[in-house]
């Protein structure tokens, strides 16, 4: 097993409250790791620590066996690319300008982009479906277009590890599927390690090899989606009962939120999942019949 990130006894806090405490984690090279957990559980902080944007208060982070602090910004950016939650750009840079910035780390001096840089960026923009926006300024893009442009920028770095903070939060379902397809392809074909923060448990379950469930500044559970996403774990962390069955295509755990906290949480507990499932299916069939 080839480890890329090794976090040991990591502590982190901004001011008073510990965000992460005695935190251990190994990120395996070539995996897709999902970071999940409630709001404020430290998912984004953890991602920023991995990106070198925050410094640990205590403990160590190693990347490929070398302390993260010893990497220069340039060395790190050749290995790790980050897609932040949200990007605002004040000045009227075009999408082409923004994506080309991903090539910065491969360029020398204050020179110009090489033909190869342009070719790589054009290919990536084609894949991310932002090539037709090349001339538009970043400010006038929709949320989804922005996010795709920023992912294109990260891919232009040609990183070994891709860190993403809720990359699909602003995207419609078609682009959500597209982005995960691209991430999977990068992961499968080029062995890029993907660490992804997600609020969407189903998405995380469906697309990640392993999940890390954060709770009270610790790793509450780490493991396969089947191991991590259980009714008990989710109740303990999110204080909320959910239905869990299997995704019909991938077979991974699928989470359905209860209809309403008051009337369903009590009644639901008694109904076996299969029964619940059949009842929903029955309702759907009846509805279809009516149409």
């Amino acid at each position, binding site marked *: 097993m080839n480890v890329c990130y090794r976090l040991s006894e990591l502590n982190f806090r901004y001011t008073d409250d510990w965000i992460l405490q005695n935190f251990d984690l190994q990120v395996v090279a070539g995996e897709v790791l999902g970071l999940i957990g409630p709001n404020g559980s430290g998912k984004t902080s953890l991602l920023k620590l991995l*990106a*070198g*944007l925050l410094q640990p208060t205590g403990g160590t982070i190693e990347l490929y066996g070398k302390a993260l602090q010893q990497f*220069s*910004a*340039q060395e*790190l*950016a*050749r290995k*790790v*690319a*980050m897609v*932040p939650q949200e*990007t*605002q*750009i*004040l*000045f*009227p*840079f*075009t999408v*082409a*300008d*923004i994506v*080309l*910035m*991903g090539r*910065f*780390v491969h*360029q020398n001096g*204050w020179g*110009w*982009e090489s033909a190869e840089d*342009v070719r790589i*960026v*054009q290919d990536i923009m084609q894949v991310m479906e932002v090539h037709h926006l*090349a*001339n*538009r*300024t970043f400010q*006038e893009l929709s949320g989804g277009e922005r996010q795709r442009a920023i992912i294109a*920028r990260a891919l232009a*770095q040609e990183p070994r590890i891709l860190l993403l903070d809720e990359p699909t939060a602003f995207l419609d379902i078609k682009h959500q599927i597209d982005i995960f397809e691209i991430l999977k392809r990068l992961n499968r074909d080029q062995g890029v390690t993907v660490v992804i923060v997600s609020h969407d448990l189903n998405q995380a379950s469906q697309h990640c090899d392993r999940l890390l469930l954060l709770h009270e500044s610790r790793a509450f559970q780490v493991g396969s989606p089947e191991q991590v996403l259980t009714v008990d774990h989710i109740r303990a962390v999110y204080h909320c009962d959910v239905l869990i069955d299997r995704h019909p295509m991938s077979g991974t755990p699928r989470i359905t939120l209860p209809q309403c906290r008051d009337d369903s949480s009590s009644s639901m507990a008694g109904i076996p999942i299969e029964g619940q499932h059949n009842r929903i299916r029955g309702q759907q069939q009846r509805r279809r019949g009516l149409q």
Partner: protein
Amino acid sequence: MTRTGIAVSSPDGFPTLSVGRWVKVMVILCAVAVVGLLVCLQFGTERIPLSQIARIVMNWSHEQMGAETQGINPSVILLDVRLPRLLVAFLVGASLAAVGVSLQALLRNPLADPFILGISGGAALGAAMAVQLGLAWAGAGFSAVELLAFLGAGMTMWGLYRVAMADGKMPVYTLLLAGVIINAVLSALILFISSLLDSTSAFRLFFWLMGSLASLAYPSILVLALYVVIGIGLLCGQARNLNLLAIGEAPAQTLGLDVEHAKRMIFFTSALLTGAAVAVSGLIGFVGMMIPHAVRMVLGPDHRLLLPSSAILGGCFLATADTIARTVLAPTELPVGVITALCGGPFFIYLLVNKRRAQMG
């Protein structure tokens, strides 16, 4: 809004800045600068037509010999008064515009300007102290004032950065407020110094503070030009780093930029340029804000093109403004700061209102 014009199309249709286009823009702008300076040279208390200018420049040495025999010799006016002053105006304008561009990227704020933020004020305080302490006449001439102006600019910039920056961001209003307060404190200190001076020196100080260009001797202009060329050259060397900083420090870092190093470099160079500009011209406001903004609208935000273009056009702008200041009430001269502030103030308000509307909309 799709950007049009020289900054966009490239041979293969991909909108990136090519060397060819960069050279083309620079050549055009240099031509504009030369023409602009020639036009400005003609005007003054006495108009010297272009043909005469050409003759004077051709026979520089010859005309100087004949200077003593005639009363007011156009060549004396041109070569000893107008040309050096125009060159100083150009260098100061170029410095202020280049510093404005850099600060705007560094602070991610299109309203940043060395004058508005009090950095020029810091330099002025340094220079005023040098004058008060008599360092200016200590034989070192130019350089004592220069050094203190540089220190003043640097310290103010550092203080501003520490005060207004929170969580890696510098909100517009925090920044402007910080600038207002820094300016107020610095003005008080400068007033304090001026009250220690005799009335003639105090008057000179005030005129200088209003932003006024006076002719320098050619050797001093050469020194100033050296400062300015090196300073702007260093900033141009940071152009790609400025592009990254303009989108934020965290993204810049994850894209591979040594953010702290680049920031230190840009701060230091900006302080150097502001110090040099203020030492020779006093407080000239708004050039550093207006010019980069206008250039950005036409050529786009890529600093490789934006920075040198702003410098050249900032030089042209200040040379023109100074020509207006010299001629509009001739033979009385206005401080050039009056002209730039009269243009810049309304422009600033326009930007502020526009920005607010954009944020609400």
